[in-house]
């Protein structure tokens, strides 16, 4: 393109064209423009990403409102009533359904049938008559937890106050004419005035932002100007006056308007076009809290502090303390209770939305004052916040933290609120986030400890047979937490009673589930109570309700899993019903029974186990055919457990199990679902442990050439695991050929990005060892061919494979192949894709590693200069591979490269000290050591010392470490003078860096520091008396390492001098400094002996000022913990006549003995 044709000047920086930017700005202005980031904002919200089941927590209305819990009696009555309602509702539904069916007659459901498998073209063997699996290409139906009953949509239930509020907040209320501000009227009076030049009458106009559409949950709430009090003039202009026979009535004396009730309305479109901002106070206040809409930016709010963000919901919830009249100076108008409320709200807002320092102080305040505030006001504010639909992870975490702290302080005062807290916290127990679950457990266990067992039981009892399955589920989990907090034995009588409840099957079901959860949560800690727990649920196996039977079997499975490998005797009572059960039941119940048996069998003695396996195997084999995915996984699991027991013989597995097993499970479909995939691989690996490598590998190795890639991957994964477990000795020659052939095929056909194939290739080839030699030329030529492939990924995989195979090629003596690979890879180093380049360099490194620096082809003196420019590559993988290779060369073959080249590399290495990845920094730092060893320390050291001047902290820290490593490898005498000299630079960073480097040096050289202690004393005197506390802190670190290094070598006089310089710092308040000082003093205990230190400490132990005493006692405690015995001779003699007269003899007479 010639100069004239260029429409734009060439720019230094590039950005999107202006037209495009304008267009986007316009789009953003428009209404309803989709917000690209809406989705990200949503995903932070807990409720937005939860499943329907989790969201059922919003249906729980019983514990949410303000005030204390109802009494136990009331709740039981209400729960019973609800249950009765539910029963009636179901009965009615049932009846209606029956009526409808009767009316319809017997209409056949012809369109409903799933077509037979054959038609779909799936090649899996047929699975018997009742085939129900939908074809794979159909969108999968939403899965429901399989042991969970159908959720009912509860129409009749009153929605929670929060959802109610959400409803009422629905946007777009029609504005009625008459409440419009009179400002409009005035403009109408003078219609000619254009709106543009109109000065807004001070606060007559509502400030409104851009119209936005909100979902029902996310409506902006603002204080509406239209609800502000009207002025007298405005009223006069609106209402008929005295002239029309009306008069203004005086305000009654007893009328006192509520001070701060302000109406909130959704933000609405301004109907008036452009508006100027008004200066009214309220607007200012609102602007201070981040404008009308709340904001994601940090904002400073008067009386609150700096907030990180403010959501529209927050502006509403915390309206009382935000904006107009929210400040602390207004507090004088309120009663004590209201004041408490305002204080709590302010603290909560700070904790929830504040910046870390604000949050920290607020959290401490709310903890300290918890008992003053009282449980009621606190939880009335905290709990509704936790039920907010727009709650985000971070907020939830913080609020839960508040509850935790507050609970600890309130202790038994919390009792009236236990149920309310549980309603809010229980959902955390089934959260998908692990940490949320842990937090939930923590809170509930603290709650249990504070409220006591009796209270917990009476609170949670009504929920045990709650109509909603969700409530029962979470209650069961909460109960298991209570059990682990207060001990199983104390809960056992209650559990026994619940599990045998005659009143409702739900209670039994929940009771059994509690025991299941206890087992899951406590693991082997159930062992002491195993028999009791098993006996408590044993009857459930013959329960009339199918769900109870299923749950019992699952609980038994969980107990057996937790108890493994002990405790079989506890299961004696349930063995028979279980065995009868697997013959009687079908479907889910059968699956649960089989699962229980699967977990009990591994606990048995070998001969029993063998017998029982043989007993249940026919049923398992029958269930191979099932189409229920859950059942298939359970069957696989049980087969794995059976195969793992001692009592089962390899022949049995080979003859009875394997044929059916392969026929029903090793099908392509199994590779598609992740859980099936994993379970099948595990089970097959376990079977291979029994049946031998060749049996299994022989069966599946042909599938390495299958056309479906996921299936090939699954085969490869299994082969890898089997071979890794048992080696390849069992594989005969023919199988070996097939295997290598299959693996090469699978590797070449790989398109997915994972290293299953790579791992498999490496594992199998390594296991074959010397036997792989004949195939090596073939493999290497494949690699060479693929190294020049067009696709970058293929090249990368080939390079990765080289890395894996290099050791085995070397051990087979195929050095020519290696050198050929080395040369080809060297030629490829111009690679432009960083991932591939990284792999290539790693491969070159692996080759250099196995052949050695002298034999390396290309020679090291060519290789290294080629690496120097690559060091500048910013890609982490490239950096890491390069630095590893360079470090290796510097370590083993530094002499092949001229010193000048090494210096060049030194400068490049400095950049790597800034790397994010620790491995890179560590490798770089170590490389400095190797290079210094190769070319002498002076030059390297000067590079590093100069680097102490740079701004970036990480780079400086790494330089100090590198200096210390150089000192360690080349001897401290080469470095310490240079460091001492550099310390004279009048620059803070440099001096700190020098101190830090010295600290590392003395840490690394240990005892050798005895030769240098006198040389550094001058420096330490200076540093320990410096004004900068970081100086003193780092100097303390030096003192620490010195004292430990020279302990017992006779340098007490120097150490005492240093201790005298350290001692004045004991009252430092900064945590790091005081930590450093205390460390130094403790090191002195080792270096000087505790007696000397004791004489220092004794001076302040009984100082009149408590703060002084605190510090001295802390030092005394570390002394006594470190060397109590050695201090005995040094305690002062404090016996006195007056004490003796008072009856205490403080003289240690044993020390006065003389023979």
């Amino acid at each position, binding site marked *: 393109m010639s100069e004239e044709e260029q429409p734009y000047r060439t720019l230094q920086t590039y950005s999107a064209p202006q037209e495009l930017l304008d267009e986007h700005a316009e789009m953003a202005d428009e209404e309803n423009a989709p917000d690209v980031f809406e989705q990200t904002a949503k995903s932070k919200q807990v409720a937005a990403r939860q499943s329907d089941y989790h969201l059922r927590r919003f249906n729980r209305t019983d514990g949410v409102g303000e005030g204390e819990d109802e009494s136990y009696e009331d709740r039981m009555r209400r729960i019973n009533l609800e249950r009765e309602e539910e029963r009636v509702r179901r009965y009615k539904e049932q009846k209606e359904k029956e009526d409808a069916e009767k009316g319809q007659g017997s209409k056949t459901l012809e369109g409903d049938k799933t077509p037979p498998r054959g038609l779909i073209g799936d090649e899996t063997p047929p699975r018997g008559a009742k085939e129900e699996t939908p074809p794979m290409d159909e969108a999968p139906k939403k899965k429901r937890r399989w042991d969970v009953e159908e959720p009912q949509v509860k129409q009749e239930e009153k929605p929670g106050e929060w959802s109610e509020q959400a409803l009422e907040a629905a946007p777009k209320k029609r504005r009625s004419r008459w409440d419009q501000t009179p400002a409009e009227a005035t403009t109408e009076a003078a219609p000619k005035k254009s709106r543009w030049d109109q000065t807004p009458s001070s606060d007559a106009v509502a400030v409104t932002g851009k119209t936005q559409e909100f979902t029902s949950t996310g409506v902006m709430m603002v204080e509406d100007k239209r609800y502000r009090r009207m002025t007298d003039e405005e009223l006069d202009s609106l209402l008929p006056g005295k002239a029309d026979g009306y008069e203004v009535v005086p305000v009654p004396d007893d009328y006192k308007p509520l001070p701060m009730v302000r109406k909130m309305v959704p933000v609405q479109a301004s109907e008036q076009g452009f508006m100027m901002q008004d200066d009214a106070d309220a607007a200012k206040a609102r602007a201070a809290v981040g404008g009308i809409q709340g904001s994601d930016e940090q904002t400073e709010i008067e009386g609150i502090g700096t907030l990180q963000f403010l959501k529209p919901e927050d502006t509403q919830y915390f309206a009382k303390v935000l904006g107009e009249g929210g400040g602390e100076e207004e507090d004088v108008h309120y009663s004590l209770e209201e004041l408490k409320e305002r204080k709590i709200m302010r603290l909560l807002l700070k904790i929830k939305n504040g910046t870390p320092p604000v949050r920290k102080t607020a959290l401490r305040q709310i903890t300290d004052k918890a008992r003053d505030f009282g449980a009621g006001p606190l939880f009335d504010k905290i709990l509704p916040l936790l039920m907010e639909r727009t709650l985000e992870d971070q907020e939830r975490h913080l609020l839960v933290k508040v509850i935790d702290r507050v609970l600890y302080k309130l202790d038994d005062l919390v009792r009236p609120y236990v149920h309310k807290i549980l309603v809010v916290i229980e959902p955390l127990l089934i959260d998908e986030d692990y940490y949320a679950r842990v937090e939930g457990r923590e809170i509930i266990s603290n709650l249990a400890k504070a409220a006591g067992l009796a209270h917990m039981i009476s609170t949670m009892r009504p929920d045990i047979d709650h109509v909603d399955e969700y409530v029962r589920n979470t209650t069961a989990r909460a109960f298991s937490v209570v059990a682990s907090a207060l001990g199983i034995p104390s809960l056992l009588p209650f559990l026994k009673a619940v599990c045998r409840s005659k009143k409702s099957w739900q209670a039994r079901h929940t009771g059994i589930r509690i025991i299941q959860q206890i087992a899951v949560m406590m693991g082997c800690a159930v062992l002491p109570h195993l028999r009791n727990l098993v006996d408590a649920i044993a009857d459930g196996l013959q329960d009339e309700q199918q769900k109870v039977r299923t749950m019992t079997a699952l609980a038994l499975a969980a107990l057996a899993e937790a108890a493994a490998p002990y405790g079989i005797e506890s299961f004696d009572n349930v063995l028979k019903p279980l065995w009868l059960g697997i013959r009687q039941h079908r479907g889910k119940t059968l699956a649960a029974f089989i699962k229980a048996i699967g977990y009990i069998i591994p606990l048995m003695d070998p001969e029993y186990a063998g017998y029982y396996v043989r007993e249940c195997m026919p049923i398992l084999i029958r269930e191979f055919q099932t189409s229920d995915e859950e059942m298939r996984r359970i069957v696989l699991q049980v087969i794995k457990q059976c195969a793992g027991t001692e009592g089962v013989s390899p022949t049995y597995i080979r003859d009875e199990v394997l044929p059916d097993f392969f026929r029903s499970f090793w099908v392509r479909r199994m590779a598609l679902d992740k859980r099936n995939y994993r379970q099948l691989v595990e089970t097959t690996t376990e079977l291979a442990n029994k049946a031998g490598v060749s049996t299994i590998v022989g069966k599946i190795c042909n599938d390495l050439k299958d056309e479906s890639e996921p299936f090939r991957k699954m085969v490869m994964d299994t082969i890898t695991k089997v071979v890794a477990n048992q080696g390849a000795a069992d594989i005969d020659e023919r199988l070996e050929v097939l295997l290598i052939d299959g693996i090469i095929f699978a590797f070449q056909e790989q398109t997915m990005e994972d290293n299953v194939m790579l791992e498999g290739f490496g594992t199998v080839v390594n296991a074959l060892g010397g036997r792989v030699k004949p195939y090596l030329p073939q493999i290497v030529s494949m690699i060479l061919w693929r190294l020049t492939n067009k696709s970058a990924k293929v090249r990368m995989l080939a390079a990765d494979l080289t890395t894996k195979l290099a050791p085995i090629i070397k051990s087979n003596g195929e050095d020519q192949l290696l050198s050929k690979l080395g040369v080809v890879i060297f030629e490829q180093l111009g690679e432009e894709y960083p991932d591939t380049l990284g792999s290539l360099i790693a491969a070159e490194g692996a080759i250099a590693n196995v052949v050695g620096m002298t034999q390396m082809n290309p020679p090291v003196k060519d290789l290294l200069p080629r690496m120097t420019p690559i060091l500048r590559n910013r890609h982490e993988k490239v950096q890491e591979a390069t630095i590893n290779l360079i470090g290796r060369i510097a370590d083993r073959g530094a002499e092949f490269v001229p010193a000048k080249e090494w210096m060049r590399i030194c400068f490049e290495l400095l950049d790597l000290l800034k790397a994010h990845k620790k491995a890179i920094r560590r490798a770089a730092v170590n490389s400095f050591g190797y290079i210094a060893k190769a070319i002498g320390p002076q030059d390297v050291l000067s590079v590093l010392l100069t680097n102490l001047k740079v701004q970036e902290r990480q780079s400086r820290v790494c330089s100090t470490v590198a200096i210390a490593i150089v000192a360690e490898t080349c001897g401290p005498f080469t470095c310490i003078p240079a460091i001492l000299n550099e310390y004279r630079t009048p620059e803070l960073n440099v001096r700190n860096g020098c101190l830090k480097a010295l600290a590392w040096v003395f840490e690394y050289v240990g005892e050798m520091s005895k030769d240098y202690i006198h040389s550094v004393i001058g420096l330490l005197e200076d540093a320990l008396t410096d004004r900068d506390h970081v100086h003193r802190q780092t100097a303390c670190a030096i003192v620490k390492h010195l004292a430990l290094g020279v302990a017992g070598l006779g340098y007490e006089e120097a150490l005492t001098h240093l201790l005298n310089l350290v001692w004045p710092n004991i009252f430092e308040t900064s*945590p790091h400094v005081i930590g450093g000082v205390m460390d130094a003093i403790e090191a002195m205990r080792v270096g000087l002996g505790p007696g000397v230190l004791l004489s220092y400490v004794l001076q302040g132990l009984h100082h009149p000022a408590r703060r002084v005493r605190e*510090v001295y006692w*802390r030092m005394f405690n570390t002394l006594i*913990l470190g060397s*109590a015995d050695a201090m005995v001779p040094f305690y002062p003699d404090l016996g006195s006549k007056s004490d003796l007269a008072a009856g*205490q003899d403080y003289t240690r007479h044993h020390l006065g003995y003389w*023979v």
Partner: protein
Amino acid sequence: MAELRYTLNTQLEQLHTRYTGTGHPDMTKYEWLQHQHRDTASAIIGHPSLLAYISVADNECQARERFEVIERMLQPCGKPPAKTDD
């Protein structure tokens, strides 16, 4: 010192209080010296040569000396002083 109470030293102090023999700023003379005496007694028992020396001085066999030293650890300084008002 105030903010330190909430950070690392809380842990350190809690750790300290788990062990016997450690002290705190409000310790009385009696408590502190009791610890010293017990430390001394356990040092005697812990060093057999010291125990032998003491037993010679007391003209007792080592087992009895040991027993008596251990018994003395119960109230090594006699009865606690009467509580003062504060």
